[in-house]
C-alpha cells in the first residue's frame, strides 16, 4: 500500500493552482488559486452551495479537477488516489462505518497504515472528544452530535499533514462546540498540522483561523486575516457575509492621494484612498453598524462623515447593545449598533437623528452593491430589525 506510512511530524502546505471543476451542466469551481502555508488554520466560509465541499473533495482526491493542479507539501498530488494522499477528512455527512464499532471506526485509518498501537491511539482520540465510554457501540446507537465527534476523532487520530474539516462542529450545542474548538485548536498548534476548516459559523471562523477565505459561486472573493477581512472587506458580498455592513453607492466627486469623496444622499462622504479600491465613476462604500454614532442634533465635527437627518424606524434592545434602524431619505435604511453605556441619550422610535462615522472606518468596495437608493417616508412600514434589503 502506498499510504503515507506515518503520522505527520508537522503540517504540509497546500497549493491549488487554477483549479476548475465542471460537473455535467454545472461549474462548481472556477479557476481557483489558493495557497495555505504549512501549520496554519485556514477557514473557508461561504453560503450553501458555493463549492466548499467540492473544494475539499478535490483536495482529498475524491473528485478529479477538470483542470488545474493540487500540491501538498510541494509535491503534485493531482493524479494520486485518495488513500495515497497525506490528507484526512471529517465528512459533512460523517460517513461512519455502520458495521463497525466506534473503536473500530476510529482505528480504521491507523490499521490501514500499520500503526501497531492503534488501540491506544484510538482510545486517546476518543477521550479527546469525550466518547471513550461509548467505544464499543455501533454508530447507529449514537446521537447526531456524538456521531459527529466520532467522525472528528476518526480523522484527527491519524495526525494527517493536512486535515480537511467539513463543518465538523455543526451538530453540536454551543458549549460543546466551544470546547471542541479549543481542542481542535490545541491539536492543530501542538502538532503544527495544517487545518482547512469549512464552517457556516462566522464567529468560529474568526476566532479559530489564522486566515479566512470567503467563497462565493465557486470563487474565493477575499482572503486574509479575520480582522483584516472584517475591517476592510473588498466586495459587497464579503461586507455582508461576514457581519453586517451599511453600503452606499454614489458618484465620485473628488479623488486625491489621500481621499476619495463621493456624493451620498446629497452629502459629501469621504473614504481614505488607501481603503478604497476604486477611484472614479460609481463607487460603493461601506461602514460597519457598530462604527456609526447617532446624534439628536446636526453635528458639525471634523474628520467624520455625516448622513441625515433620518428617522428611527426601529429600535431593538439586545442586552449589551441596541440596534437602531434609521431611514435616511435618498440613502435608505441604515443599521446602527450602539453599546448600552452608562451615559448616552435614549433614542426612541420616530426620533430624528443624524449619523456620523470616522473617515478611517469607511471602506470602498471593488464592486457596486446592487441596490437602488430607497426613498423612505414616514408612512412606510418600519423595517424588521436585522433585515436591510438595500444593504445587500
Amino acid at each position, binding site marked *: *500500500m*502506498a*499510504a*503515507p506510512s506515518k503520522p505527520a511530524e508537522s503540517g504540509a502546505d497546500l497549493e491549488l493552482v487554477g483549479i476548475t471543476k465542471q460537473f455535467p451542466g454545472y461549474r462548481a469551481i472556477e479557476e481557483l488559486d489558493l495557497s495555505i502555508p504549512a501549520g496554519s488554520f485556514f477557514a473557508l466560509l461561504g453560503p450553501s452551495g458555493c463549492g466548499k465541499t467540492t473544494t475539499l473533495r478535490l483536495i*482529498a*482526491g*475524491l473528485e478529479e479537477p477538470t483542470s488545474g493542479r493540487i500540491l501538498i507539501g510541494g509535491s503534485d498530488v493531482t493524479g494520486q*488516489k*485518495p*488513500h495515497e494522499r497525506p*490528507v*484526512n*477528512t471529517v*465528512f459533512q*455527512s460523517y*460517513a*461512519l*462505518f*455502520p*458495521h463497525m464499532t466506534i473503536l473500530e471506526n476510529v482505528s*480504521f*485509518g491507523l490499521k*490501514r*497504515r500499520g500503526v501497531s498501537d492503534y488501540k491506544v491511539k484510538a482510545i486517546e482520540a476518543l477521550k479527546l472528544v469525550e466518547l471513550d465510554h461509548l467505544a464499543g457501540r*455501533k454508530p*447507529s446507537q449514537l446521537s447526531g452530535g456524538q456521531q459527529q465527534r466520532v467522525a472528528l476523532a*476518526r480523522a484527527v487520530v*491519524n495526525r494527517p499533514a493536512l486535515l480537511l474539516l467539513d463543518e465538523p462542529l455543526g451538530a453540536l450545542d454551543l458549549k460543546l462546540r466551544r470546547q471542541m474548538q479549543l481542542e481542535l485548536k490545541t491539536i492543530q498548534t501542538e502538532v503544527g498540522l495544517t487545518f482547512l476548516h469549512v464552517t457556516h459559523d462566522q464567529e468560529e471562523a474568526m476566532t479559530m483561523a489564522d486566515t479566512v477565505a470567503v467563497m462565493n459561486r465557486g470563487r474565493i472573493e477575499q482572503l486574509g486575516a479575520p480582522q483584516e477581512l472584517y475591517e476592510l472587506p473588498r466586495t459587497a458580498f464579503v461586507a455582508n457575509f461576514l457581519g453586517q455592513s451599511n453600503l452606499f453607492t454614489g458618484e465620485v466627486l473628488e479623488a486625491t492621494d489621500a481621499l476619495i469623496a463621493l456624493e451620498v444622499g446629497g452629502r459629501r462622504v469621504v473614504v481614505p484612498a488607501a481603503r478604497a479600491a476604486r477611484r472614479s465613476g460609481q463607487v460603493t462604500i461601506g461602514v460597519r453598524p457598530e462604527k456609526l454614532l447617532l446624534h439628536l442634533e446636526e453635528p458639525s465635527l471634523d474628520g467624520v462623515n455625516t448622513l441625515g437627518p433620518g428617522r428611527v424606524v426601529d429600535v431593538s434592545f439586545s442586552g449589551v447593545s441596541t440596534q437602531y434602524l434609521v431611514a435616511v431619505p435618498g440613502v435608505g435604511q441604515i443599521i446602527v449598533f450602539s453599546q448600552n453605556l452608562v451615559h448616552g441619550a435614549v433614542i426612541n422610535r420616530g426620533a430624528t437623528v443624524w449619523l456620523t462615522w470616522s473617515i478611517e472606518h469607511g471602506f470602498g468596495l471593488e464592486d457596486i452593491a446592487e441596490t437602488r437608493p430607497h426613498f423612505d417616508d414616514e408612512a412606510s412600514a418600519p423595517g424588521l430589525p436585522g433585515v436591510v434589503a438595500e444593504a445587500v
Partner: protein
Amino acid sequence: MAFTAFASDTALAPQQEPTKRGRVALLLLLPGLAYLAVFFLAPLISLILTSLQRPAEFGDFGQYEYAFNVDNYADVFGAYGGHIVRSIAYSSAATVAALLLGYPLAYFIAVTLRRWPVWQGLALTLVIAPFFISFLLRTLAWKQILSDEGPVLGFLQLVQVLPDGARLTGTDFSVIFGLTYNFLPFMVLPIYASLASLDLRLLEASRDLYANAWSSFWRVTVPLSLPGIISGSLLVLIPAAGDYVNASLDFLGGTGTAMVGNVIETLFIETGNYPEASALSVILMALILVPVAFYVLFTRTEDLI
C-alpha cells in the same frame, strides 16, 4: 421490491410493542400458519413416519407397515453415501460459482448503474428473464448446446482445449454448470438488494482513511452486503442440493452424476421403496438445516448494521 425483504436484516424491522398490534399481527399470521400446518407439518410427519416403516411381514413385495425401523437410515447411508457426498459437493460448487458470477453482476447493477435507473431496471429484468421460460425447457436447451454434436464442444475441440473423445454432457462440469445457471438469479437478487442500499460515501471515507480499492472492498463493501451474500447462498444451496433435474440422465447428467434427488426420485417413483426414499429425504433435509441453522445463529448474534 419483493426480494429486498429477504436481504434486509432483522434489525431494520420496527420495534413493536407486544400489545394490541401484536395480536393483530398474530391474526394476520393465522392463514399462513394454517397453510404451513396442513401442507408442511403434516407431510413432514408423514414422511418421518414412512421413513421408519419396514416391509410388511405377511404382505406382498412393496407393502410396508408402520414400525420404528431405524435401520432404513443406516441402509440408505450405506447404499447412497456417495450420492449424498456428491450432492453436497455439487451444490456447494454451484453456490460458489453462482457467488463468483453473481456478485460482480449484482455490484454492476446496483452500484455502477445506480446513476441510470432505466438501465438498472432493464438489467434486473434480464436477470429474471430466464424465468419466463420453463426450467425444464431451458435445461434441455443447454443439453443441446453442450451435446456431443453441439457448437460448444466442437469449438473447444477445434481449439484443442478438449481432446477428441471428450464430452461435456454427463460430466460433473455440466451438472454444476446447470445448477449454477438455473439458480444464479436467486444469488443475484438478494445481493443486488443489499448493494442497492450501500452508501457510496462510506467507500469514500474508507479511501480517505488510507484503504486502497481492494481493502475498501473487503472491509466495507463485503461486510455491508453480507446479508445479501448469505441469503443468496442459501437460496442457491438449498434447491441445488435437492435438485434432480440437472443431474438426471435426461438432462445434463450422466451415469456417474446422480445426486440424492435422483435417488429419491427413483426410489419413490420407480422402485416404490417408500421407507428408504423417505429416510433419504429426511437425511437431505437435516443436512440442509445445518447451513440454515448457521444463518439463524449469525443473524441473531451479529446485529448487522
